[in-house]
């Protein structure tokens, strides 16, 4: 026997089900009313080694049990659910208020929205700090670290694309502002998928990853943000700054330094307005630290 046999597909129909079980039969599986012959075939398919369907069967069993009328929840589960209830209540109250505000201004604001997009394109790097920011520790080559402020959250006022993403932005922003960066990163990634031209969700997602110390993932995410920003013409110092931080944290100072030099160069052309983040100064400071630690390392290696 040379190894496992290939798993035969249960169905050719991949419309909305797990890939092997059609969507209509997922419902029947969940409700325990799959035709006996189909159930037997599904069970055999799982026994033959389809991991995806094994997961589906396990998930369906747990979901069916948890949502049944006779479900028994532990006290920990009930307490956790009450915390969720409070959080969702707050979110819905906020979301309802935002939607009512949107509805009032939508008809009047179309032209204003277009103008806002244009202004945002020009001024995206000059957003004033408007929310409390967290911080992250950037490790340096000499073992010290530099405290970097996270990007203040400023949700986009204009919806780009067909979907109304305001609810998703609100949920992601909540997580980001409260320092739940893991949840924030996931939510921003979800927004980025729904808005494939937007760079902002990837920027905030990248900063969330930085806040968790995941520098290499952050560098990759921010590189994607940069690609989108360049296509849309919305590149700016904030994105370059956090890309440089991610690259430096990933020990890729050879790539970080040119970015930092570019920020310093660009910032000297435009004055910083009150309330704006002075990325030029931040870049200049980090460049000095990088160069000083490099000199100390070279000195120590003599």
């Amino acid at each position: 026997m040379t190894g496992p046999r290939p798993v035969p597909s249960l169905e050719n129909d991949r419309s909305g089900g797990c890939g092997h079980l059609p969507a209509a039969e997922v419902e029947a599986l969940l409700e325990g009313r799959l035709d006996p012959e189909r159930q037997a075939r599904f069970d055999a398919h799982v026994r033959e080694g389809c991991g995806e369907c094994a997961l589906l069967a396990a998930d369906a069993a747990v979901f069916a049990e948890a949502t049944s009328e006779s479900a028994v929840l532990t006290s920990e589960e009930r307490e956790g659910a009450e915390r969720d209830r409070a959080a969702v209540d707050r979110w819905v109250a906020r979301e309802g208020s935002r939607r009512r505000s949107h509805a009032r201004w939508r008809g009047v604001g179309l032209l204003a929205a277009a103008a806002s997009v244009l202004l945002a394109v020009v001024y995206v790097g000059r957003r004033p700090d408007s929310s409390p920011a967290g911080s992250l520790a950037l490790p340096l080559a000499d073992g010290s670290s530099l405290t970097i402020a996270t990007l203040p959250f400023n949700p986009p006022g204009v919806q780009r694309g067909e979907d109304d993403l305001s609810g998703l932005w609100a949920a992601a922003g909540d997580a980001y502002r409260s320092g739940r960066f893991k949840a924030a990163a996931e939510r921003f990634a979800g927004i980025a998928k729904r808005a494939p031209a937007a760079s902002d969700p990837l920027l905030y997602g990248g900063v969330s990853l930085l806040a968790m110390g995941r520098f290499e993932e952050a560098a990759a995410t921010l590189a994607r943000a940069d690609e989108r920003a360049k296509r849309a013409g919305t590149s700016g110092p904030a994105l370059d700054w956090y890309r440089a931080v991610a690259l430096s944290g990933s020990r890729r100072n050879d790539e970080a330094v040119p970015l930092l030099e570019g920020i310093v160069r660009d910032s000297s052309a435009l004055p910083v307005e009150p309330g704006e983040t002075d990325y030029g100064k931040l870049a200049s400071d980090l460049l000095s630290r990088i160069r000083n630690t490099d000199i100390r390392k070279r000195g120590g290696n003599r």
Partner: protein
Amino acid sequence: METVSGEARTKASETPDDAELVRRFQQGVDREGAYRALFERYYRSTHAFFRRRVGDADLASELNQDLHTTVYTSLARFRGESSYRTWLFRLALSRLSHLRRRWRVHLDERPVEVDETFWSELGSGEADPRAGIDAGRRNAALKRCLAGLNEIERAVVIGQYVAGSTLQEITGLLRLDNPSGARAPLLAALRKLRRCLESAGITSGGDA
């Protein structure tokens, strides 16, 4: 422990069914009230689902909150081709699927290539538990049994015996903050796998 059955029956007799609530939401008839009723009906159950499938209370809360905020923003587009409960299940699955891909614990048709030490650490008796067992049957049973673990347990097993990570690395990767780190879920996972593989006739339980 407390049951929710009494509450569910009371709620069912006092409020409309899921389909009616969805209709009210989509037609703008007391939209907030319709959403609230659906939420009240399911939020505890979906939290329990995530808690049991993931194995971490905080992560379960994040997934559950994300699920129900997504319901709020997406219910207008629900076409009613399945029941609301099934739709909720599929939304929940998409969140789990995303987590599984991030942690690389999604199972598919490929065999699970465990390290040799897995079988000895399973502790299933003196004889080699794999003796006389077809490799395909053994791998299929292992996948079924892995699917029954929660996400953290599966991540720890796959990290330890497939990816070759140390327990410390796995503890850091999964951000486990209990004092034992990854060791506790690993021990729990091995116990469950032992029982599952025994019932599948793959291991002997030590007395064969």
